[in-house]
Each structure stands twice: as C-alpha cells, then as structure tokens.
C-alpha cells in the first residue's frame, strides 16, 4: 500500500509570491547588461500609406545615437514573419492567403503604428529624441476600415498583390440546415456586431537581445508566452543553430494572448540589431505603442439565423460572418474557428452551417485575446435563445434546459473542425446541474418572483441575467517536462511553457508533490527558459495546467516508480510495503526503516560502482503529453445589476459563477483566474472599446480614454464548482484560464434588457457603454 498526502485540490499559497511581493522578481525591463543600448521605433501616423522616402542622416548624427536602421539596411535579412498557424489541413474548401507582418516597412504602411525605422542609442530618451530627427515622406492612401466596404469591388487593397481584401474563407457544416429550416415553426434572423478590445496587460511588451560574438551565442529576454518557438524561429532567421540561442521568458506581467503572438516586428528587429552591432540591445514598449503595435481582437459582423420548433428546440443554426484580421494574418483561422465551434454553445444542435470571410483591414493585427473568438460565439447563441424565448413565450431558463446536451450524450461529436485541426468533440460534461447551481446561488426564482417586482415598484431598474457557456481548452499539440530528484532531497522541474501569473510555480509543484511525497515548497519549477527545456509550444488557449500539468504528472509518476524501485532494493522491502511522505521513503509499519529522497538520489548517481545497462542514472524522468483533442469545460454566470436610467451607469449587485473544469488543482488559484477573467469580461462588455475612425486612426490610445475597470467597477464574485472529470488525461483536468471572459457579454445583454424591462431594447452588439446604451434607447 503506497500512500502519499493529497496536495491536489488544496488551497496552497504560492511559491512565487515572496519574490513578487518584494520587488525581487525579474521582468524583462529589469534586465541590465553593461554596454546595453536602447531602441526606439519610428512608427507610422498613417494607417495606409506608401513610403516614398526616408532620411535618417540627421538622426544618425545626434550625439548618443549609435545606429539607425531601415528596411533597406536589413538587406537580405529583411523577411516577413513566419506563418504561425496554417489553415486546418482537414478542412475542405478553404481559401487562405497568408500575409505576415514585416520587420520594418519597406514600401507600404498597412496600419497606424507600423514600425518604419529603429534608432539605437545610449538611452531611451536620446533614442526617442532621434526618432523625431528622421524625415519621412508618406503618401497617404485611402484606408480599409469597414469590413463590408473592404470586400466591395473597387475598395483600396491592403495587400496589392491580392485581388481583394479577402484573407480567408471557410465554410463548415454539420447536418442539413436548409432541411431543418423547412421544418421550423420559428426562424429568427439577426445581425450581430462585435467590436475590438485590447488585452492591455499591465506590463507592456519588451525584448532584450544580447549577442556575444566571442561565444557566438544569443540570449534573449522576451515578454513572450512562447519562448521555444521564438528561439527556434529566431535561430532560423539569423542562420544560427538552435543551441546558440537562449530565450528566457522571465516573470511576465500578464499575457492574455497578445504575448503569444510571435515574431512581432520588434522580435525580428532587435535580435538582428544585437548581432549586427555586437551589443546588448533593449526595447521596451510604451503604453501608446501597445495600443497600436500589440495585437487586439474581437471585431466580427454576423448574420445569423436560428430555426426552432414551437416547443423551443433548436432545429438548426446558420451563421455567415466577417472577421477582421487587421493588416496581416499570421495566426491563420484560429479565432474564427473558435467562434464557429462555440456558436452552438453547449446545446444539442444537429444542423449547423457556418461560413466565415476573413478580411484584411488597415488596423492593428488581430490575434487571440483571452476568449479568442469564443465570447463571440456564445454571445450569438445566447442572444438568439433570449429572442426565441420571448417570441415563443418560453421561460428563459426552460428554453436552455430543453436544448442542453444531456449527460449521456458525451463524448458529443459536433464534427466540424476546431482550432486544433481536430473534429470538434465535447469530451465530458454534466451541464444542467452546473446551470442549476448558478441559478440557485443567485436566487434566480425568488428574485424574479418577489424581489424584482418590489424593486420595480420602487422605480428601480434592476435586472437579472444568466449565461451558460462552453469553453474549449487544453488543446495539443503537446508539452513536456523533466522532473529530477536532487541530492538535497528537493525536486527540480523544468517545462517549456512560460508563466504570466497563473501560479504555475505552485500548481505544478502540487502535482509533483502528490506523486513524490515532498512539501510543495520543496519543488522548484523552472518555466520559460529554453536552456532548461526546449520542447513545447507555449501558454495559450487555457492549456497550461492541462497539457504541461499532465506532462509533469507523467514525468513525476515515472520518477516515483524509479524511487520506489531503488528504495525497494536498498531497504530490501517489496514495493507495495513502501510509502512516500515528507521527502522520505518509509516502510509501512516499520517507522525507523526509512531513506531520504536525497540519499536515494546520490545512490542513483554513484561515483563508483556501475549503473546497470538499460537504466538511467539518477532519479529523473522526462515525459510528454499530447491530448487527442481538447477538453471542453462548461460553466454558467449569473448577475444582478442596477441601471441608472439617466446616466446609464451600472452597479453590479451580485455576480455568481459556477465552473466545471474537471479536477481542480488549486482552488485558490482557480478563483483568482475566474475573478480576473470576469473582470476582463466586464471590461469587454461595458467599458472597453477600441475606436478607430474612418482613416484607421485609433482615437483612444491611452488609459485615459480606454477604460479598464478599477476596483470600484468590479463586484465581489461568488465562485461555485462542479467537478466532472475529463476522460482525456490522467489528472482529469480541463482548462479555465479564459472561462471568466466568455459568457460576460451575453450575460450583460440579457441582464440589461431585463433591467430596462419597460423599454424597447434588443441588444445585438458588444461592447456596450453608458453612451451607447443611451443611444440605443433613444433611437
């Protein structure tokens, strides 16, 4: 009988906190290297323009300036970034034109803020001064900003070598929508418009590149969620061996998706400059640059149709939509595929056609931002069900209940292709109890029956809403980890993904501690350093805990086995009479017969004697995990809010979430992820919107005008759990990183309509704002 303490599922405080709390954690801008130079970029003020001429001579002469580079100076090293995600090979009838971002503009500017030249100087201050010395001549061109106009004949072209601004087209179908429609008692058609928002992590992007000619080695510190692909791609671009390049993603101040975008212009330029000058070079983005040069997401226009029977059953769904990809499309069809796979929600929809046209525009690039296309899909289905509920006279809750996928239908095959190139299969779930729990927690029935009528009589506009949702998580391809028992008895673990605050140093340590029987604080995790571990992809799509976590679990299990086998020999006791606890191997019922893990590690790596052929020295294992397909989580949010009828400002009275993400590793960390996601979702729904004018100019590129919610806008969030294990991995976990953001726009729409019950209001757009709500009501 082998027993260890259970660490998984415990609210354990984080290993990484003391460093972060005392200002002793290394972020990219904290890197200081003797002789380091600083970069500043000249960026285009125009969204669409031809670069006629550029004269950097004055900038080069400014005292303190070491070099100024343009596209021409890069010569043959000037290459657009690599395609990051190709279209799914298994999808039929895909049109895809791959156009990727460039290091520095060569002939044409395609979005405001695109980098045209870089100044390298002794300080950032001098570099910025010198940027203003550069003389450029840009011939402004008409900008493509509106998605529909962008596809019309005669529209200006973002990419001149294409015939139109169509970047991609994908048609997917399940069943036969037309047939379903012909049998329907009710068909609802709507146009739904969703607009852009920014991730706005508190830390802007940055990169320090240090090429040392004497050792022919390049070290890069980068605010990236994907250090390994950055290493591999950078080595390729610079003609180096992958082992000559080390990429470190140290502590990162929030990622949320845009830091998963790879080979930003700056990531292509700065390492090149370092190699050219043989000096360390630092570039740190400022907040205004972040609004222009860091990726954004959410812009889509949907023409949707739902066909229902008179008792509220969804017979079929049809969606034709446009997706704004910005000036380039390095990330392929990832976001629209996510949207397509979430438009059916957690419902039993047997007939679905979805058709997306991806459009190039003269705006900042679009790549996944927390939610990554899923919020749009959920917004659509939940809005349609709200409208159907009204038209069919069926209760809002009841119409969902009738359509949710029943528990015995899992794994449920939707057949259309998802962002991981696999057919969409919802692995496991038990949806109704999750939804029911959320409604219970918020007191839905009592509120609607008793409290709301009373408040309405008092003249208050208080509304209640709920929104169920699915979240695809934990996608492959794979991650890996190496677990080692050290002579001190402590455990060291290395994995390829990076960390942006999700508590990897702790949650992963819990997984290891569970297997190997040590204290959580005695497990040291290293993430995001390609020298420590160089196989893997990155932290995105709510997959870190699932994929890396399971790789760590697999590696720890192998180490556990090695420990037990060796201890069994040393203690001359059969394995099943041993237990691992407190850093020791103990013989059950013989308390003094023990050996510490540290001693075992030494024995496994002897200075004399032999290591048996066919075995490995030490107590170490490397393992990989790649799921067949991603696990799908389910949840429901519910909210009570009050709307001020004059100012349209809202006050959220209560906010409830219930989440089923399978096995929970650390409830404290999980709550933190949900709170943070909801807070971002609330921003997405009611406070944040990027406003571009008809010339592609971003009009609110600062926190003064782009409104991130503060502590006074975000309510207390009550978190409930249901656990339905995933069958796709040993830990039974599903991801949850993005869950907080996904249902919030749909939730707001329902709750606000419910609050303003006596108004004619049908919300078919996101984001909203007090201004916009006022406009909608006064149409």
């Amino acid at each position, binding site marked *: 009988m082998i027993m260890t303490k259970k660490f998984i599922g415990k609210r354990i*405080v*984080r290993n*990484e*906190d*003391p*460093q*972060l*709390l*005392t*200002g*002793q*954690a*290394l*972020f990219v*801008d*904290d890197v*200081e290297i003797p002789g380091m130079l600083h970069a500043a970029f000249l960026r285009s003020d125009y969204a669409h323009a031809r670069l006629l001429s550029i004269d950097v001579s004055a900038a080069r002469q400014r*005292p303190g300036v070491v070099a100024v580079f343009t596209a021409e100076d890069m010569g043959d090293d000037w290459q657009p970034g690599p395609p990051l995600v190709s279209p799914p090979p298994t999808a039929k009838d895909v049109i895809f034109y791959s156009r990727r971002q460039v290091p520095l503009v060569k002939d044409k500017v395609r979005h405001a803020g695109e980098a045209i030249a870089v100044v390298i100087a002794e300080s*950032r*201050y001098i570099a910025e001064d010198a940027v203003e010395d550069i003389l450029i001549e840009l011939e402004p061109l008409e900008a493509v900003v509106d998605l529909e106009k962008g596809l019309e004949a005669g529209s200006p072209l973002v990419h001149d070598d294409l015939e139109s601004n169509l970047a991609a087209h994908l048609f997917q179908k399940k069943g036969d929508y037309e047939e379903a429609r012909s049998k329907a008692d009710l068909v609802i058609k709507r146009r739904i418009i969703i607009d852009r928002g920014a*991730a*706005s*992590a*508190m*830390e*802007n992007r940055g990169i320090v590149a240090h090429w040392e000619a004497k050792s022919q080695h390049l070290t890069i510190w980068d605010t990236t969620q994907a250090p390994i692909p950055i290493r591999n791609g950078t080595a390729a671009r610079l003609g180096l061996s992958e082992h000559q390049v080390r990429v470190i993603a140290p*502590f*990162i*101040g*929030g990622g*949320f998706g845009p830091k998963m975008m790879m080979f930003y212009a700056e990531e292509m330029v700065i390492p090149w400059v370092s190699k050219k000058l043989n000096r360390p070079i630092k570039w740190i983005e*400022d*907040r205004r640059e972040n609004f222009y040069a860091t990726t954004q997401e959410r812009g889509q226009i949907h023409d949707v149709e739902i066909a229902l029977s008179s008792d509220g059953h969804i017979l079929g769904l049809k969606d034709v939509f446009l997706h704004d990809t910005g000036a380039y499309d390095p990330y392929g069809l990832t976001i629209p595929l996510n949207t397509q796979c979430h438009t059916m929600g957690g419902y039993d929809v047997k007939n679905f056609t979805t058709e997306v046209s991806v459009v190039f525009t003269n705006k900042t690039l679009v790549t996944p931002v927390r939610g990554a296309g899923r919020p749009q899909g959920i917004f659509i289905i939940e809005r349609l069900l709200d409208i159907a509920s009204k038209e069919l006279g069926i209760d809002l809750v009841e119409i969902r209940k009738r359509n949710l996928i029943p528990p015995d239908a899992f794994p449920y095959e939707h057949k259309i292709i998802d962002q991981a190139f696999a057919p969409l299969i919802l692995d496991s779930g038990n949806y109704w109890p999750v939804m029911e729990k959320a409604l219970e927690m918020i007191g839905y029935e009592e509120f609607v029956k008793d409290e709301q009528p009373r408040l309405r009589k008092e003249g208050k506009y208080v509304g209640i809403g709920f929104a169920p949702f699915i979240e695809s998580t934990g996608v492959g391809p794979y991650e890996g980890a190496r677990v080692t028992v050290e002579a001190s008895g402590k455990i060291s673990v290395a994995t390829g993904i990076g960390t*942006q*605050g*999700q*508590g990897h140093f702790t949650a992963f340590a819990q997984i290891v501690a569970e297997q190997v029987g040590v204290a959580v604080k005695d497990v040291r995790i290293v993430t995001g350093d390609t020298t420590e571990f160089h196989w893997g992809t990155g932290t995105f799509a709510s997959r870190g805990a699932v994929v890396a976590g399971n790789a760590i679990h697999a590696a720890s299990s192998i180490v556990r086995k090695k420990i037990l086998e060796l201890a069994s020999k040393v203690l001359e006791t059969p394995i099943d009479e041993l237990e691992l606890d407190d850093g020791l191997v103990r013989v059950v019922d013989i308390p003094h017969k023990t050996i510490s893990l540290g001693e075992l590690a030494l024995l496994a790596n002897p200075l004399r004697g032999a290591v048996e052929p066919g075995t490995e020295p030490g107590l170490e294992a490397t393992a990989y995990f790649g799921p067949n397909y991603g696990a799908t989580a389910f949840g429901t949010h519910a909210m009570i809010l009050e709307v001020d009828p004059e100012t349209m400002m809202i006050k959220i009275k209560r906010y409830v979430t219930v989440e089923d993400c399978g096995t929970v590793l650390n409830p*404290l*960390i999980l*709550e*933190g992820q*949900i*709170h*943070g*996601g*909801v*807070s*971002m979702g609330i921003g997405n729904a009611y406070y944040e919107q990027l406003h571009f004018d008809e010339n592609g100019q971003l009009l609110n590129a*600062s*926190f*003064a005008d782009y409104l*991130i919610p*503060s*502590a*006074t806008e*975000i309510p*207390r*969030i009550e978190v409930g759990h249901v656990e339905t294990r995933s069958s796709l991995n040993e830990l039974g976990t599903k991801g949850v990183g993005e869950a*907080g953001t996904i249902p919030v726009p749909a939730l707001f729409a329902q709750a606000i309509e419910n609050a303003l019950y006596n108004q004619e209001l049908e919300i078919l757009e996101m984001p909203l704002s007090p201004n916009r709500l006022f406009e909608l009501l006064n149409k």
Partner: protein
Amino acid sequence: MQNLFDLAVTVNGSRYEHAVEPRTLLSDFLRHDLGLTGTHVGCEHGVCGACTVLLDGQPVRSCLMFAVQTHEHEVTTIEGLGTIDNLSPIQETFQEAHGVQCGFCTPGILTTVKSFLEQNPDPSEDEIREAISGNLCRCTGYQHIVDAVKLAAEKMKA
C-alpha cells in the same frame, strides 16, 4: 549633453547622491540609476498606478515626476516595505489571500495600501476599493486584493 543636476535623495532609508538630467523621470531614476526595479512602469501617463511610490509618506506617480523633484526628500519604494525573509504584514496577507498573480501592479498597490492603512486602519470594503481605484490590475479582479487588505488591517491592529 544637458546640464546635470546634483540630486540628493533618501530612498528606503539610504541616501543617494547622483548627477541626473533634469528630464529624467523618477521611475527611470529608481529603476535604472538606482537599480530598484521593484517599481514598475505600466502606462507613463499616471493612470495605471503601477509606478506608485511614497514621497515623504504620500503616494505619488513616479512616472509623472522628475527625479529632481525629490531633491532632499524621502522616497519609499516596495523594496523598503519588506524582504523575502522578512515580509511586512501587508506583504504576508497578500500571499495568504492570493492577492498577487503576475505581480506587475503589486508594488504600486502595496505602497498605496501602506499609506492608506496608516490613515484608515479600520476600513470597510467600499473604502478599500475606493483607495485602490487608482491602481489597475488586469489579473486578479481585485477581490483577493481587497481580502488581503482587510486581513492586513486586522493583523496590524492586533
């Protein structure tokens, strides 16, 4: 080369004498001249609060000040609140209540909270939220931060 100013400032109890350009921001001076990189820069326009330090005990935005404005004054940064082996009560409770995720906004929040609790040792939740409404956090949704401040207030009273 601009004329340099002979700045003398006390930071976290230690006196520093440096010649600085008048236009050097306090945040840059602390981070790069003094190597105190705990203070973070999030926006450079005074909204996010990550750069908050205490000037003679009062919270200020170091990204909106010039280093020379601190001449002969006292500055406290996060490094002055506690060390890894000797966390202050506020830092301890932030760990207990999981008020830190990525840690980027944290130094600004801790300095703000330190000053706040000195003025209001027994705050309500609403008062806490109001006090930190000038510090943006993108990770935590603020709830665990508020919990941490409440816990700290209780700890410091005892």
